[in-house]
């Protein structure tokens, strides 16, 4: 046990953004275990400075390529909150479809392309082509395409949506298109159930690691919360003063990271699919619950590696929910609504939403001309960085006896389990423009 180990993984692969894992062990003693973020700061606050209220969602969508729909929606919610704009029921349903589409797209991309290779002992998704797992790969591809088609239909484009505007939508899908989507979703439900069986067969490859953690996410009485809800913590319960989110999400700076860390009741907390599952599992739709059972996911689960399983469960839930939402739209009749009118006024608005990686907050202050004077965003991955660090610190002592390659793989898998979106998470701070 008196080994020297030096691990420096620069730019972990199969994660979005640039992060490094550093582990220095001398004579069996852990000198340094660090999760570093080296992503260049992008200064999004500077980009929002002085911008008109209708431009904010376009710019903030560029924070991230994978969760651009989520950022747009959080931005719109914050803007509409500041300007007291109410949206129609149809817009609410369409936005839920948008979020479902993004959640599905992000989760299947992550589980299928980024995490599954580890479970099947390959370095990337490319070797799976033509192998005995080719069938599973095709299922992943099919589901990914379904998610993209859904987002394309509702938002105009999956990455950097077009139709999501203040007060509603700039273009609305037709009944014909929605019925076709519904049919594809029903087929997709069967496909993902088959994929779940495949995951079930390799699920033992997931490390069995447990560390008691606080989980934070949105919760709602009406539904498994994504678009609307109150902030909730597995430790402290429901918090309804949404504009005072900083009382829950306390961000702080660390030198090894260009991204902030966050804490609440303990030294760190976790957000994301596992957090949402732990808070709201009762509200999952039927097939999703069945999938959770199949894959041995039970609340409250403290194993961060099960986050990927929770993502697959949410994927199933999103498909079922989307079918329900489309039925609602068809029943009410699809109206060619123009976005709601906006009366420009001064104000502060906060928009909180669940994006694939966790709870996201946009907080804007607008002046009397409708221009942004102050902006703050809390990114899900920021909130996870501290938890990743703490998990690593707890995990490493137990695996020191393994080979260097196995330690590296286990640490990388831990980072991947969180599905971090590192370029989103860099640079967010509270800023006031003069």
């Amino acid at each position, binding site marked *: 046990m008196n080994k020297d180990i030096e691990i420096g993984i620069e730019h972990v692969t*199969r994660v979005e953004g640039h992060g490094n894992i550093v582990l220095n062990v001398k004579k069996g003693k852990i000198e340094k275990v660090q999760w570093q973020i080296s992503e*260049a700061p992008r200064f999004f606050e500077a980009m929002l400075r002085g911008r*008109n209220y209708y431009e904010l969602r376009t710019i903030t969508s560029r924070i991230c*390529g*994978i969760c651009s729909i989520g950022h747009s929606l959080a931005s719109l919610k914050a803007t509409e909150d500041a300007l007291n704009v109410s949206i129609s029921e149809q817009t609410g349903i369409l936005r839920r479809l948008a979020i479902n589409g993004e959640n599905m797209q992000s989760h299947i991309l992550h589980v299928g392309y980024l995490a599954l290779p580890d479970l099947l002992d390959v370095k990337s998704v*490319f070797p799976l082509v033509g192998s005995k797992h080719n069938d599973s790969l095709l299922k992943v591809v099919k589901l990914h395409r379904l998610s993209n088609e859904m987002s394309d239909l509702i938002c105009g484009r999956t990455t950097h949506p077009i139709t999501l505007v203040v007060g509603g939508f700039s273009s609305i899908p037709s009944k014909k298109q929605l019925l076709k989507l519904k049919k594809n979703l029903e087929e997709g439900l069967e496909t993902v159930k088959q994929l779940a069986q495949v995951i079930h067969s390799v699920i033992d490859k997931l490390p069995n690691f447990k560390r008691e953690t606080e989980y934070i996410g949105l919760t709602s009485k009406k539904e498994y919360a994504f678009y609307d809800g109150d902030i909730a913590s597995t430790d402290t319960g429901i918090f309804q003063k949404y504009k005072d989110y900083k009382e829950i999400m306390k961000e702080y700076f660390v030198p090894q990271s260009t991204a902030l860390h966050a804490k609440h009741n303990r030294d760190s907390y976790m957000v994301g699919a596992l957090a949402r599952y732990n808070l709201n599992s009762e509200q999952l739709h039927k097939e999703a619950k069945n999938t959770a059972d199949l894959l041995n996911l039970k609340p409250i689960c403290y194993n961060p590696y099960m986050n990927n399983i929770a993502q697959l469960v949410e994927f199933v839930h999103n498909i079922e929910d989307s079918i329900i939402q489309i039925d609602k739209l068809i029943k009410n009749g699809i109206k060619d609504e123009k976005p709601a009118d906006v009366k420009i006024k001064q104000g502060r608005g906060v928009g909180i939403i669940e994006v694939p990686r966790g709870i996201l907050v946009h907080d804007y202050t607008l002046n009397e001309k409708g221009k942004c004077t102050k902006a703050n965003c809390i990114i899900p991955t920021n909130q996870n960085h501290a938890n990743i660090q703490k998990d690593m610190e707890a995990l490493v002592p137990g695996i020191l006896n393994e080979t260097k390659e196995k330690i590296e793989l286990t640490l990388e898998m831990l980072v991947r389990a969180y599905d971090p979106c590192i370029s989103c998470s860099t640079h967010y701070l509270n800023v006031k423009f003069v």
Partner: protein
Amino acid sequence: MKPRVAFFDFSSCEGCQLQIADLEEEILDLIEIVDVVSFREVMKEHSDEYDIAIVEGSIMRPMDEHRLRKIRSRAKTLIALGACATIGGVNKIRNQWPTEEVIKEVYKDADIKDNEFFNVYPTKAVNEVVPVDYYIHGCPITRDEFKKVITALALGKKPEIPNYPVCVECKKNENVCLFELGKFCLGPITRAGCGAICPSKGSPCDGCRGILSKPDVECVMELLERYDLTYEEMKSRCMMYNTESFNPKDGMTIVRRGRK
């Protein structure tokens, strides 16, 4: 031998690389004509030997510049992928203000002084650091255009990107012109190639593929008056992706092609 392709990203949202990952089954066609030797976002393997380097993102720090120069020296062909790489995109918005001011506002009193990670300067597009051979514009890129460029290179020919405005494609789509709906669209001065996707979905073009030409000032003033916009608002819209196309002092500085 198939050309070896490597993907790199700098300061970006990685949405452009995601479009390529989203090729799904067509990725299989792609790897039939090229060898993908490095694509950090989806695979672990990496090689330092490649013929075509595809670079996404803007350059903000000396350490990024250093990495980019290494990439340029190893590749025969370098393609700038997406608005952040081709023209700076939204990353250049902060160039309107001195970097020290922006850093101070964002990081306040945090101790970042000798931290290499935070040593930023005004955003640069890739061609402001190294020569770029081809550009794939857009925020994000369109998959079709990416396919066109890659097949052109695989066929040994120079890819041709449109040198005309978005209006051409918008009219071919038979869209109701957004100006007629009271919206101000940058389509007439923005490079085409995206199929006019935003105006086709009811959202005015914001110029993410790069401003093509400087419009006549008198004409612009007339339009602004007709659609009840101020010059400042229009400038602000234009500067979303094309910040340094507009010199704050004199307004529009892109030289018009075809004009004496």
